[in-house]
């Protein structure tokens, strides 16, 4: 295939007035042998695009370099189809909007970016997707409201479904509920729990196979190619081919035994909201004191019992306020002279639920106050005394209840089941691996103490990795439902504390992700977050030294190993971040359109001025997800920064290969900056650990540099959130100052 490159330098958006266009044209046509270099006052206009299209259709050019605005704009306009490699050179945000016009340094910067763009275009190839025949069946784990709704949604989307439930009937917790709080209409009437109609629909749907009294024995494989082994209570095992998995294992109530400070255990008449619900469900709404079976006429509810408390559950479970209002109505319905008092930290009744809150406020026998519960003690006649400070009544008060309900929060079913002490003991005794998975699997630290739900055969752990509170890890705003296991999606109250209405919506969301996953996987495309990317890392295994860095570092467990340690890819688990490429010391992992060579060629294309010119050069690898847009925004805000910097975007900073650092230093680059996403507990990396890995690797390089008497300060690593654009100039300036101090790169003149 011919590689004639056409370069199109747009003159709009003040590019034309700020730069020497003729000089740029010379860089393209003379220096880099581009077939054509054209200017237009707006290539994004119909006329402009037509110019490029005419060149392409006339076979004048085969590859296109558009030197104009940031690739984050006009990407649909400059899409010339899957057969044309198109590269965007960001002359607007990264050059003319952040540098003085018609200036020597600005011109050098623009020329360097143009060089890099053309070189990259010459070095990369069109991707070739990896396509296999896949299975589109969806496995749903959990038969509660979320699981049932997920099964139905998947079935409605045309997928076969296998629904696995560990108990002997569908319905989950909703089956135990007496009523559910209003979810529709004027939002002021209690409703019968909706699970019954879901059960009916699931049972009637022919494309859903329900397997009750069963748990997951093992899930082997990758999206589209899973084999799931399901073990029934009677010992029988079933095997099913699966495409994607929805984890809807639900929740568990917070352990009230830990709430003795709120009176749990003080008296039999102190119960949890879950016990209250079960009592109401079992007795058709009658509320009785456990101690003597007498009707409860004076019921107090304590909200946030253990919730929003750093000692217990630090988060809000979002449902308890509505649940207590509902249960207060149970009390009022069971006896018109009965009273219900709710002591809360804040009432949280979001959205339309406010209507139900208003209804409760208007009820003569419901009393609401903010307050801090100081103590709960046993009173006379089985009554409970509650001392409350900071109440709305304007004084320290005491309440007397014949039944006290603690509104406890929700923990995900995935949360650690062992306490820290128990865990330590179990690890010491070597029992944990067996408990974590019933299988004889290798010990995995990631699974220690976690309830075995998925039992994935997966080198990074058989369960979904957790956030700090035990919820499956995924950014809840940017990437809800996603997990660190491609093709496995969490839904419902295992993902976040949700009520049944939210669970139903949530299940639809997770099913959408599963459907997307199967559709994209079938086309050999990446699922998330680089949805639609057709590339896949290629391994030149003849030169592999079995060092296992790639297999260890891949955040998504894409690479298993054979006995020798050679990587064995599961391509459909791959998210195309390039961490493996960055990790490989032999440089044998590359993508067709993103390779060791393409980046190395780009950085070598930078023209490094002689030492006596006193123009340092700083190379800056940036994460294309957060840092690159931040730099665009710096341009948009016309922030000015030092002209010696050159940015090269990477899919993930974790893809930084150390050879690029070596190449840069040997080609005379004075300083190297890496800007990645925030990492740590609240990480922002799209690929979980990429920026952290880059920082770790660079730490090693800095040690080496010190040994070579080359100042380690020449390499600096930063974390930058997408909204921290105002820090861009200072990050560059810090490096310029460092170079002023340590002097130019001593390899410059070699």
């Amino acid at each position, binding site marked *: 295939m011919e590689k004639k490159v056409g370069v199109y330098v747009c003159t709009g958006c003040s590019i034309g007035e700020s730069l020497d266009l003729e000089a740029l044209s010379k860089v393209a046509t003379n220096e880099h042998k581009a077939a054509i270099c054209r200017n237009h006052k707006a290539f994004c206009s119909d006329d402009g695009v037509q110019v490029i299209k005419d060149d392409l259709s006339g076979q004048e050019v085969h590859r296109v370099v558009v030197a104009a605005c940031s690739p984050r704009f006009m990407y649909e306009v400059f899409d010339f189809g899957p057969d044309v490699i198109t590269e965007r050179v960001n002359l607007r945000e990264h050059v003319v909007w952040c540098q003085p016009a018609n200036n020597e340094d600005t011109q050098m910067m623009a020329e360097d970016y143009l060089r890099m763009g053309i070189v990259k275009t010459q070095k990369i190839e069109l991707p070739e997707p990896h396509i296999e025949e896949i299975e589109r069946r969806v496995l749903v784990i959990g038969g509660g409201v979320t699981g049932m709704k997920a099964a139905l949604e998947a079935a409605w989307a045309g997928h076969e479904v296998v629904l696995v439930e560990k108990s002997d009937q569908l319905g989950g917790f909703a089956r135990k509920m007496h009523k559910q709080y209003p979810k529709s209409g004027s939002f002021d009437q209690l409703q019968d729990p909706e699970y019954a109609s879901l059960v009916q629909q699931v049972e009637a749907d022919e494309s859903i196979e329900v397997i009750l009294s069963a748990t997951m024995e093992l899930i082997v494989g990758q999206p589209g190619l899973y084999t799931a082994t399901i073990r029934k209570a009677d010992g029988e095992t079933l095997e099913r081919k699966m495409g994607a998995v929805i984890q809807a294992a639900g929740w568990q109530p917070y352990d009230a035994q830990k709430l003795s400070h709120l009176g749990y255990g003080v008296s039999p008449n102190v119960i949890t909201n879950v016990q209250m619900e079960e009592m109401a469900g079992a007795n058709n709404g009658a509320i009785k004191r456990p101690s003597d079976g007498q009707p409860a006429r004076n019921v107090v509810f304590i909200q946030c019992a253990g919730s929003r408390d750093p000692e217990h559950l630090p988060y809000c479970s979002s449902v308890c306020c509505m649940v207590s209002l509902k249960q207060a109505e149970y009390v009022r319905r069971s006896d018109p002279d009965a*009273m219900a008092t709710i002591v809360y930290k804040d009432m949280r009744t979001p959205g339309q639920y406010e209507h139900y809150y208003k209804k409760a*406020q*208007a009820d*003569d026998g419901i009393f609401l106050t903010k307050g801090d519960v100081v103590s709960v003690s046993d009173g006379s006649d089985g009554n409970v005394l509650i001392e409350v400070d900071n109440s709305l*009544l304007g004084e320290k008060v*005491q309440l007397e209840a014949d039944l006290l309900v603690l509104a406890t929060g929700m923990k995900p079913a995935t949360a650690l089941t062992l306490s820290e002490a128990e865990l330590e003991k179990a690890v010491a005794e070597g029992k944990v691996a067996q408990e974590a998975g019933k299988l004889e699997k290798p010990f995995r630290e990631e699974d220690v103490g976690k309830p075995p739900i998925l039992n994935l055969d997966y080198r990074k752990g058989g369960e979904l990795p957790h956030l700090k509170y035990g919820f499956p890890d995924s950014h809840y705003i940017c990437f809800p439902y996603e997990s660190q296991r491609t093709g496995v999606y969490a839904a419902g109250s295992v993902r976040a504390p949700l009520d049944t209405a939210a669970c139903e919506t949530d299940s639809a969301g997770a099913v959408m992700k599963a459907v997307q996953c199967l559709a994209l996987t079938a086309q050999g495309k990446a699922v998330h977050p680089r949805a639609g990317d057709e590339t896949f890392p290629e391994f030149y295994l003849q030169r592999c030294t079995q060092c296992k860095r790639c297999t260890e570092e891949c955040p998504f467990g894409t690479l298993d190993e054979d006995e020798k340690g050679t990587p064995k890819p599961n391509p459909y688990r791959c998210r195309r971040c390039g961490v493996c490429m960055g990790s490989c010391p032999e440089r044998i992992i590359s993508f067709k359109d993103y390779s060791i060579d393409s980046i190395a060629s780009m950085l070598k294309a930078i023209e490094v001025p002689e030492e006596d010119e006193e123009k340092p050069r700083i190379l800056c690898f940036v994460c294309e997800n957060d840092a690159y847009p931040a730099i665009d925004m710096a341009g948009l805000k016309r922030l000015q920064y030092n002209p010696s910097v050159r940015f090269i975007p990477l899919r993930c900073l974790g893809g930084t290969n150390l050879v690029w650092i070596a190449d840069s230093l040997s080609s005379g680059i004075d300083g190297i900056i890496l800007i990645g996403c925030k990492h740590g507990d609240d990480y922002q990396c799209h690929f979980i650990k990429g920026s952290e890995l880059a920082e770790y690797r660079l730490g090693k390089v800095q040690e080496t540099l010190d040994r070579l008497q080359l100042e380690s300060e020449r390499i600096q690593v930063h974390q930058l959130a997408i909204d921290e654009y105002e820090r861009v100039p200072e990050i560059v300036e810090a490096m310029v100052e460092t170079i002023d101090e340590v002097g130019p790169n001593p390899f410059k003149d070699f």
Partner: protein
Amino acid sequence: MTERNLVKPDLNFIRELKTAGGDTLKQCYQCATCSVVCPQSPDDRCFPRKEMIWAGWGLKDKLVSDPDIWLCHHCGDCTSYCPRGAKPGEVLGAVRKGAIEHYAPMQGLAKAVNDRSGLTKILAVPVVILLVGALITPALNRILPYHQGAYGAFMNTWFVDFTFISAALFAIWSAYKGVTNMWADMKANSPTQPAGSLTENLLAVLKEIVPHKKFKECDVNQERATAHMLTLYAFIGLAVTTTIGFIIMYFTGEEGVIGKMLFVMMKFIGNISAVALLAGAGLLFINRKSKDEKSGMGSYFDWGFLWMVLLVGVTGFLAQMLRVAGADNHHPNILAKAVYFVHLVTVFYLFAYAPYSKFAHLFYRTTGLVFGRMTSRQ
């Protein structure tokens, strides 16, 4: 350990308040807009926010002994600004009714006075007494010297005075009991104890009441202050009139220079006061009718009392007119007698039941204001 108040919500008191005009009380969500807009509320422990949650929880003991409910002049500012339509002004009105009933020494009587269903029984008392009076008047008139003028021939003046002085004594006893009990409760429940001279503070409060200084601070419903002031002056004028009448009847007689002078004064003040009463009560009536959207409709407690005041004015005026217009000034016709009879019944109602009806606010509000003043709540 700090002493803690055991809070026991009282569902029945909530229901009582709701039927007494506070039906919106549960709407309150404690935003305190009411306390901010209230021109009467002091800066600390302001009202009516705290009264609203006490009412919402049915905390009767706290409410009835709260002097702040008497600082409220029911202007309706809070009610018209309340974002939730909880009508704090109306709720406080209902609470005041609750307090009057609570401190009334005869609670059954209080209930009967303030409930429409008790009206017949309540009116039956003066009707029976006065019918007996009318029946025995011919006999009495023979034994006792009586005042010839006016309706003396129809209703013996000694009898009338005896009845009304007894009623007044009953009222004074009731009011005294109620006020002293309330004072004791207020003292027991107030975080600050009253300081200073009772007489001085009472005088200071009266100085404010006479020109309606506090009442006029109210914003939304200012016309009511004028109407109420007119009514108050009318009652003062009528009290003066009655006193002069008493002096004439028992001491000076109508003859002689002093007697004649006093007679002219009595007629002059009496008629002016009667006109003022009609005007004041009429205005209050119209005002309540037209402002109901903004500041609430009140209840039977308010309306019953207002009707009775109007009736006293109308019948008193008519009784005089009909008598003067009649052929024989000393022997009024049957219509005049009937009107006079109704007048006596309504006056009895106002007199005897004063500490039990809305009229009781005269004592309780004054007490509340004095207490408020002595605890720096003004």
